[in-house]
């Protein structure tokens, strides 16, 4: 259990360098915030970890896994789940159905190192999946039961009971963000990436968010990496804060250290 280790990560789009030689560690059980002005490269970093983007250079390791070698559909199997700034729910599905899809990885074959085993496993699993679905085998019953229980448990934890059978697309943006957090949690990850959890929330919802994030860390024993603008949210909950500006890491430390760092003050207040 070494947590997340990012080393010398670089990614450019055309001539613009979105991430420039960024290194960052997130230790198990920590809440680390990634802050910085718009266009600082925060979401690009998330998308590199999620493997939506390929980094030009550098490495991303999580526990024993080399994420750069993986596809986006492997990342959740290593124990990393995420949410999105603008919410990427399955809109015509109910909340519970979203949470069932969110557990897809729990019943996938475990990741193996060797290429042969991965393909053999995938083939066996694909066959089993179709077959079990057609025959409604006891294993698929049991897994489904387990998945429903987990979904209900997380629904209760996040207070979504009232809306659990409503299509996700019909809910308010704030509740959708909450559902997305639930969908990340049901995968039983060891680490969650939260992409601007506060954006678009009402003042009231914002007030609770800090407590929710902390209780998620404590109850589900997950490590949390947050991208966020709202300092009122970030300061009280973060163990450490990492500041990006124009793709470079300009500061890292406890909230107090970062707040008094001249480079940070200049990036936020200066031109």
């Amino acid at each position, binding site marked *: 259990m070494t947590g997340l280790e990012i080393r010398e990560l670089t990614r450019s789009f055309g001539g613009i360098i979105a991430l420039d030689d960024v290194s960052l560690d997130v230790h198990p059980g920590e809440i680390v915030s990634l802050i910085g002005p718009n266009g600082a490269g925060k979401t690009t970093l998330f998308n590199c970890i*999620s493997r*939506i983007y390929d980094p030009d250079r550098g490495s991303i390791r999580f526990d024993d896994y080399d994420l750069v070698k993986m*596809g*986006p*559909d*492997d*990342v*959740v*199997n290593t124990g990393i*789940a*995420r949410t*999105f700034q603008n919410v*990427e*729910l*399955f*809109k*015509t*599905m109910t909340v519970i*159905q979203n949470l*069932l*899809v*969110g557990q*897809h*990885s729990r*019943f*996938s074959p475990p990741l193996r190192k060797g290429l042969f085993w991965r393909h053999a496993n*995938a083939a066996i699993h*694909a066959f089993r*999946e*179709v077959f079990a*679905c057609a025959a409604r085998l006891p294993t*698929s019953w049991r*897994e*489904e039961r387990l*998945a429903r229980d987990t979904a209900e448990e997380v629904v209760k934890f996040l207070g979504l009971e009232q809306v659990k059978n409503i299509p996700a697309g019909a809910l308010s943006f704030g509740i959708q963000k909450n559902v997305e957090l639930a*969908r990340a949690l049901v*995968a039983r990850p060891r680490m969650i990436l939260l992409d601007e959890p506060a954006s678009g929330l009402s003042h009231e919802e914002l007030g609770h968010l800090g407590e929710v994030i902390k209780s998620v860390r404590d109850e589900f024993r997950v490590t949390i990496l947050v991208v966020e603008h709202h300092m009122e949210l970030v300061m009280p909950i973060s163990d450490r804060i990492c500041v990006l500006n124009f793709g470079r890491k300009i500061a890292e430390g406890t909230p107090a250290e970062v707040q008094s760092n001249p480079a940070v003050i200049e990036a936020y207040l200066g031109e």
Partner: protein
Amino acid sequence: MDELLQQVAAGLATGSIYGLLALALVLIYRSTTVINFAQGEMAMFTTFVAWTMLHWGTYWLVFILILLMAGGLGALIERVVIRPVEGAPTLNVIIVTLGLFAIFSNVATIVWGGQPQAFSHYPINDETVKLGAVVLSVHDLAIMLFAALIMIGLYVFFQYTPLGLAMRATAQNATASRLMGIRVGRMLTLGWALSASVGAVAGMFVAPIVLLQPPMMLAVLLYAFAAAVLGGLDSPFGAVVGGLIIGVTESLVGTYTPKEWLGPEMALTVTVFIIILVLVIRPTGIFGKRVLRRV
């Protein structure tokens, strides 16, 4: 009045076939936004294979084997022909499906010849059943029964099974699905397999009506296309309802159009007119949600 009821019932029976083929189109469209123009020809091809196999096996055994084989064929086409153009513009993929259309049509002509064949060994006979004022053949009833069973089966599959949910998730948001650990490519393959199987059922029920021959699915595909557009190209439920509406329309227009106004031939014209009308007035169809992509 009885005549009208009779025509509506007959329309519902043929409409079920259109609904099935429309369902096959929708299963592929909603996950890839591609209209598979080869859908009808694939069904024709598997029906010819079934006809050959009927020389050796009993009908229902062949029926089940053909569904499995059609699924395999659909999966194979997705993996071998469609996968390489997956990232390409929609138009490219459509042209690939047009190529498949030509291939299946020509291969069928080469292998089985162009002459119409009677779809022999069909176990459902032409006896009729009287339901109130309406007289329906057993064949018509079988079509409606099978269409209903398939639709209920698919509904349960997409609504209640983890695999069905994963397929819906893929159709709605591929990126998010990948991050849930869903193998999106595998779901697309499965979608093609499912679609080809559903299409094969349509073929098996068309053949006894129109005689088995390479062009037998051409008109059916057009009606199915109209049904899918009318119901909404991304809505399986809409495809079925659209199929029934088109079937009844065809039946009524065919019966009540005076001879001097084309007679039964008018049905095809009206169907094409419906396609145009829907695309102009409500491009998403009755039950569709997304805006139709211009292709």
